[in-house]
Every structure is written in C-alpha cells, then in structure tokens.
C-alpha cells in the first residue's frame, strides 16, 4: 500500500465508520476533517469579522479560532483552494481576494507547514484567470506554489457514499493527498446555485461539473459536501458581487462589505454568509439539503458565534 492509497483508504474508512473520534488524532490528521459532532479544535463554531482589510480581519479571526496551529502542524502539506474561476480583476469580486489568500498562506507557514499549494479548476482559461485575479502573484509572493487543474489527469476517481444523485466524482489529487485543506470561497451571487459560498466552491476541486448541472445541481452540491470536508473554511465577503454572478458584468455588480467568516462547518458558514448577503439560508436549496443531511448546522441562533468588529 503506497502513501497515496493509504490516504485514500483512511478517508474512506473514516467516512464509512462515521466515527472519527474512535480513530483518534492520527486518522483525523490524515483525513484533515473534523466530523460533525467531533470536538472542534476551536472554542467557536463560527467567527465573523467586519470592518477591516482582508489580512487584518483574517488575523483577528484566527486569533479567536485559537491560531492556525490548531489546524496546521509542523511539516503539514497544505492546499488552499480559493475561487479563481474567472479571468477578471480583483475589483470585480468574481474571485477570492488575493490579499486574503496571501495572509492565509503566511499563517500556514508560520504554523510550520512544509508546503502550501494553491489551485482552482477555473471556468475561464486557467493561466489568464490565475494571473488576472492577482492570486498567482500573491500566492507566489507569500511562498506558496500554484498548481494547475485544467486537465483530467490531475483528478482521481472517488466514490461518494450515501448520496442521492452523485455516486462518483473525480477529485483533484492535491485534495486527496494534502494533510490540510483550506477552503477560501468568495461570497457572491450565482446564476445556477443562487449563491456561492463554501459548498459551491468545492465544484472547483472536481473535474466534471457538467454532470452536476445535468443531475440536479443543488442536490449534487449537498451530496459532495458530505464526501470531503475542508479543514477550515474562510469566506471572503470583502467585495461582494450582488448580481450577475458568478462572473459579473462590471464593477457595478459589487458592494464593499469588508466582512469575513471563518468556520470548520461549511453549512454554518454558508448560512451566515447568506444572511450577510441579505437572503435566508433555507431559501438556498443546497444549504437546506446539506443541513437536512446533517452535514453541518443551519441553526445560527444555537451556534457559538464570535463577532468581531475591527
């Protein structure tokens, strides 16, 4: 059994058993996925910050979460997955804020990460999108490397257990093989999924997205969220695209919200982001389905939320 296979099997075994705590810290480390019900490494279910620059807000949020050391250990291989879907400039709010991506990378290295890699399966031409989003430059300057995701050979076939519409998916090898997976979506309006936040951002780690569009998009998004959960989710709501998403037509589509959410629970982060956007979480079907499937919690009122204003 080689290293890669071992990781895969660990993930499957952990998921199948659905009993992560029983496997202890070791398996949790490899799966990189604190399961629902397992003790969160942070005292809070969700940290929300507003009023600062992306890097400052992220510093504050991580302070509240107990520091990046809670998620990244010495020698860990980290993959950071922002939204780099579109070949547009940062002011358009279509891609994750490059400053935030850079700050996350710095935190990872400070916590002892061996290597941080940044990638997204873009919609537009990947080289142009990486460059014009400002993320390639920011990531490289912060010491991370970028990886492509535009050809099928980077993807590994996985089986998604207990799903309704999505039995198979092909997932990027970096997700399968990294120790820590940090999901960094940008909050924006979305023509297909209505709103894109954490769960929708995972469409950028799979190969065949048309399959999802063909087979009930919302259901597929929720199904896949059960398969692989990020170690940490950081929602960029600094520049928020309010209409014409996910690509946007011009800078007139965005408002400056200067907000940031951090959580290990994708559903909670998505629900809070929906509220921030001005909509109701239950109205976004994939969030409602995911909550129903107990992938995470939608009941914000009962969560332990830390609210910070910079």
């Amino acid at each position, binding site marked *: 059994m080689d290293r890669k296979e071992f990781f895969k099997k660990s993930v499957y075994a952990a998921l199948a058993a659905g009993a992560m705590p029983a496997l202890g810290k070791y398996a949790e480390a490899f799966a990189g996925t604190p399961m629902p019900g397992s003790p969160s490494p942070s005292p809070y279910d969700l940290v929300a910050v507003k009023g600062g620059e992306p890097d400052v807000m992220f510093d504050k949020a991580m302070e509240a979460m107990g520091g990046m050391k809670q998620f990244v250990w010495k020698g860990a291989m980290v993959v950071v997955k922002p939204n780099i879907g579109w070949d547009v400039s940062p002011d358009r709010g279509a891609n994750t804020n490059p400053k935030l991506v850079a700050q996350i990378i710095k935190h990872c290295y400070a916590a002892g990460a061996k290597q941080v890699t940044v990638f997204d399966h873009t919609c537009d*031409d990947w080289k142009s999108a990486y460059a014009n989003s400002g993320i390639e430059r920011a990531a490289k300057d912060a010491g991370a490397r970028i990886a492509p995701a535009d050809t099928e050979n980077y993807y590994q076939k996985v089986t998604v257990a207990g799903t309704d519409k999505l039995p198979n998916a092909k997932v990027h090898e970096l997700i399968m093989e990294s120790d820590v997976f940090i999901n960094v979506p940008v909050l924006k309006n979305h023509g297909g999924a209505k709103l894109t936040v954490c769960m929708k951002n995972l469409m950028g780690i799979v190969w065949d997205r*048309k399959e999802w569009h063909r087979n009930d*998009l919302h259901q597929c998004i929720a199904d896949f969220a059960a398969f692989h959960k990020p170690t940490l989710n950081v929602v960029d709501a600094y520049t928020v695209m309010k209409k014409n998403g996910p690509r946007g037509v011009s800078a007139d589509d965005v408002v400056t919200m200067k907000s940031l959410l951090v959580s290990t629970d994708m559903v909670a982060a998505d629900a809070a982001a929906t*509220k921030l956007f001005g909509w109701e979480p239950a109205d976004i079907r994939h969030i409602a389905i995911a909550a129903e499937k107990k992938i995470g919690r939608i009941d914000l009122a009962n969560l332990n939320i830390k609210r910070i204003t910079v």
Partner: protein
Amino acid sequence: MYQYLKRIRVGVSAAFFCAVLLLFIDISNVSRIPLLVSLASLQFIPAVMTVIRIGTPIVGLVAVVALTLLAGRVYCSSICPLGTLQDGVIALSRRTRGPRKFKYARAFTLVHYAFLASSVFFLCAGSVLLVDLLDPYSFFGRIAYTLFRPGIVGSNNALAWASDRLHLYFVYAVPFRTVAGSVFVVTAASAGILFWMAYFHGRLFCNSVCPTGAVLRLLSRVSLFRLTFDLGECKDCSLCEKICKAECIDYKKREVDFPRCVSCYNCIDACPAIGIHYTLRYGKKGSEPASSVNPKRRDVLKQSAALLAAATSVVSLDRAQAAPSVQPAFELRGVVTPPGSRSRAHFTSACTSCYLCIAACPSQVITSSFLEYGVTGMFQPKMDYTLAYCAYECAVCTTVCPSGALLPLTNSEKKEVQLGRAKFIKEDCIVITKKTDCGACSEHCPTKAVQMVKTDGLFLPKMTEELCVGCGACEHACPVKPNKAIFVEASSVHGKAKKPEQKHVEEKKEIPVEFPF
C-alpha cells in the same frame, strides 16, 4: 566579402526561421511579442493580401520588392521560412545521398507562371483558393502547427506528467489539440511531396509551384545586380553546378539562370576562386548578348502590367464587397469566424490559412475547418465552441494576423463585436426536461445576455440577443447531450453588441452595522 556571403545568408535565414517557427510552436504564449509577430507580416503573400484586401500599404512589401529588384531573390533564402525548411531537407539529402548531386535542370517556366496566373485569377474572383495552399509562409505555418507543434505539446505533457508524479507542478500540461483529420492528411501529404522535391531536386518547389517565387522570379529578371560567371576567374571545376540547389547553373555554358537563383550563395562558397559574382545587369561589364535583353524586358513589363491590373481589380472588387451592411445577417448554425474578421466574406477572401491565430489563441477555441466554408475557403480557421469558448478579455488573434483577414481590435473594442447570437432551445433545456435548476449558460455568459428567470418555481434561461457577443461560453458550458440547448448562430457580418447595462447595485450600507445573525 564574397567568402562571407553564404555565412551571412545562413545566419539571417536561421534567425528568421527560428523566429517564425517559434510563433507557431510556442505553447506558452510568451513569444508572440509585436516584434516577432511583425516578422510574419514581412512575408510576401500575407503582405500582398493586406494591401489588396485592406488597402493598407506595407513597408515590408516595398522592402522585399526593392531588394529583389536590386539583387534578385534574396527573400527566398533568408526571409522565407519554407525555403529554410527545404534547405534543412537539402542538408539532410547532402548527408545521406551524398554531396554535389545537383545538376542543371530545365526550367519549368510555364508551369510556374501557370500556377501564379491561376492564383491571381482566383484572387481576382475574390477567393484565396490556390494562394492559401501554395503561399510558402502559410504552407510553412500549417506544417509547423499541424506536424511540429503536436511534438512540442507531447514532449511538454510528458514532462508535465513526470513533474506531476513528483508533485513539482513545474511544467504544466496543455490540452492536446490537433486539426481536423482531413487537414492533417492533406498537410502531411503535401509536406511529404515538398520534402521529396527538396530531397531530390533542391528548390524545385520554389521554381515550379511557389507563387511568391514566381513573382520574385519575374522581378529578378530585371534586377540591377545578378550573379554571373567570371570567365577569367573560373577554374573549370563545375562545383558550382553540382551544389546549386535551384539547379539553375549551367556550367557547360557558363551561365546562371538568374531568375531561378534563390540567392543561397552555395556556388560562391564552393568556388575555389571568385568565379561567380554579382555584376551590374545594365552596365558595360554585362556579358550577356545585347540582343536577348530587350525582348526579356518587354516580357517582364507586360507580365508585370498584367499582374498590376489584376491586383487593382482585386482591390476594387473587394471594396465593393466590403460595403458594411447595417443589419447583421444570420445563417442557421453557420460557421463562426474569429473576432476581427468583420464578415465571413472578408475573412474568407483574405485568410491564407497560416494558422497563426489558431496557434496564438490562449483558449484554443479557434481551429481549422475543412470544407465548412466551401471548397474556396478550404482549411480556413473557424471557432469551435465544443472545444472551448472565446475569452471575453482577450483579442490576441486579431493582433497576430499577417494577412489582414483578422483586423486588430483592442480588448474593449472586441467586447462589442457580435460574432453571432446565441439561440436558446427551451424544449432541450435541463430545467424543462429534468425539472431541476442548472444555470450553466448564464453562469458563463460575460454580458448576461442569458439570464436565469424564475418560471414555475425553477430558474429558466432567457436570452437578450442584443447583448450577446457570440463568444460561445453558454454553448460550451451547456450540459445537455448530445445537442446543446443553447448554441451560437453565426453572423455572416459581425454585428455590434449592445453594451451591458451599467447600473450600480442598490446603494446600501456597505459594511453591515450589525451582523445579521
């Protein structure tokens, strides 16, 4: 001086060859800087096409004509990449077949000028047939893109594969795209014939088929300087004839058929003395009998006049054609022509199918056609939205075209060009057939010409055709199999897309005063 001529020629031709080759095989898109791209527009036939179809004067064309009138077909052994490619085959032939195997051959003058005349005839008729097949630069481009580039892509991807296995992500794989099978077969076969000709008969193509060669051959008949034997210096060794790849040196008669000479200077290099050198054609030193000069000159003048008349008629013909129509015309599922082509008529009448736009397209949405434009537009590039879609922020193809088929557009100009209009077939849409939300088309649309509108509890695409730029993003993204529920219908005359409405989202408190949770 004469001992350096060949070396200079080899250096210059190698530089031109490498630069032009790079334009076609560079998969990283970094080499297509204006300086290199301008080398492509020095190419004779693309420059001629620009002049007759657009009417823009090309300095390079004047320079090439002047150079030829001065010293003969220097172009053929320095600027022409196909010439240098043949020289490579000839060098191989020298190694394998043995050196000095050439001998003076008959001139296929009639055949050669017949090819030129037919090309000019088709040009006058508004078609590029023959010109696109025979133009040495475009032929070279197709060989480089179709036959050489896959090798580069393959090696790159092998390296990328190795780098990925080591998780270095140092070299990136690029999608393996090739042209249509028919285009590949024709290009490979014609390249095979070319290589065969070069291997056994040197520059036979240049002196019996090539239309550029024919024009320059005409011009070099009256060039100021020409290469001639110096009977006093000649050592009677016949090396010059045996090494002449144009097979234009008749050693026995001590004559150089200068119009056929491609100025490679091999003879000068091989000569133990300076037995062949440039002489003034009209000076006293000219050894040619005076009687033969005048009829030749008259011939040339006649032929040139005919060519000039033909070229002028082509210009006037094209001007008439290019009168812009206000209303964009549509044809069902017609072939979408690349940005900057203005209209199908303009594009198909000017494009010589060199494939530089295909090689340069970062999205790789431009590909070769076979007979989609009809026989007269065989092989010309087209947009193929099953492969990819045209990037909204990109106008690279319009800046590299050397023949004026694609006219330069800035990024913002290109955003208003309507290549076609997307048509939505409601009955085939996932939202209708499977009763679930999808929205892939609207997601990808850069202008929101297709919006998702709530209909019976689900969101259904709705087209605003005036906004559509025909980029094909919706068509490419549509998940419906086998026939897309949304597709771009080509505009045979490119229209102008309406600018998307720029209304700022409702003004609200930017930073939430209180968290809404």
